[in-house]
């Protein structure tokens, strides 16, 4: 079992990135916090010395936790303008440089948990095929094929808008 202080000290520096990963996978703030807390608890119950790479361990645990919660679909909320100080805030996206978040969220909603996880690990966590395969417990070929299918699905969905036409 790990010392509380070991995991706590590590989580102080890694906590935000863990929450971000969980949030991208679940798109639910409370759910993301729950997932990360559950993962940290698991890490506290194994000897800290046995965790060779805490970040890799946490990533794997987070993806497993999200999958085990049986979320077949991402609980995506529609993006509504946030009210900051009573004034409707706008996000200054530059037209072609920044992907429209709302469209992407809706498209991600249509992916399976596995497809979504692959995209998140590859394009959000910036992991290569091998590291992604290790986390998911599959081959690199599977990662590539799942990723390709997921991107195709994303493009197909987003081509319904004029902004992101299918190739």
């Amino acid at each position, binding site marked *: 079992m790990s010392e509380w202080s070991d995991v706590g000290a590590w989580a*102080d520096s890694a906590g935000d990135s863990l929450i971000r990963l969980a*949030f991208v996978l679940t798109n639910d703030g*409370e759910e993301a916090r729950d997932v990360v807390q559950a993962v940290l608890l698991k890490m506290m119950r194994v000897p800290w010395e046995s965790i060779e790479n805490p970040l890799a361990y946490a990533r794997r645990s987070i993806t497993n936790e999200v999958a085990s919660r049986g979320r077949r679909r991402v609980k995506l909320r529609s993006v509504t303008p946030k009210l900051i100080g009573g004034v409707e805030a706008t996000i200054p996206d530059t037209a072609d440089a920044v992907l429209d978040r709302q469209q992407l969220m809706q498209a991600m909603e249509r992916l399976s948990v596995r497809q979504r996880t692959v995209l*998140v690990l590859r*394009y959000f966590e910036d992991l290569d095929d091998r590291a992604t395969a290790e986390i998911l417990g599959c081959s690199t070929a599977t990662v590539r094929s799942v990723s390709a299918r997921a*991107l195709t699905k994303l493009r197909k969905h*987003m081509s319904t808008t004029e902004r*992101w036409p299918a190739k």
Partner: protein
Amino acid sequence: MRPLNEYDVRRGLQDIADQAPPYLGPPTPETVPPASTSRAGWLLAAAAVVAVLTIVPVVTALSESTDNAVSAEPSSGPSTEPSTEGSSNSATPSASTPSEVARTYTVDELLEVGDRLRPAALAADLPSPIHIVIREDLSGLTLKLLPDDIASWGGPARLVERYEQLVEGVPLDVVEGVPTSPRAKQN
């Protein structure tokens, strides 16, 4: 218009992540939920039974011996809090407390610590003591654990350190014990 590419996905996911709530800190031992409600319920019930079976007779015996010691021999008996029920002693802690004992507790205090110790140990994945015994001098608790549990934690000192974190520094010692009931053996 260009098609969606990997860069767009990367940027889009980063944008989504920017909406994530802040990290609020790791779970603490006090907030650790039980692994399973039903399992925890059974374990707590078992722990409560064992605690009652082990602590109550000891406390009864200790109460009697303390009363006797205080009334018969105030200068050599263990010190007690002035408000302890049933003891009309006039001994002061400074006069009767042995120098090696930092402080003494009331029986109620130690009972309360014993009650808190088992669930806290379970929550922290520490082995649950077979018996919790109040020290004769009321300076703390003696925890009896299975020899295997003690060995797997690298000895009593390591366990004492962990348990004391759960009970806010109340002095403890760990000794080997033997289960006295089938339920305790299961623990």
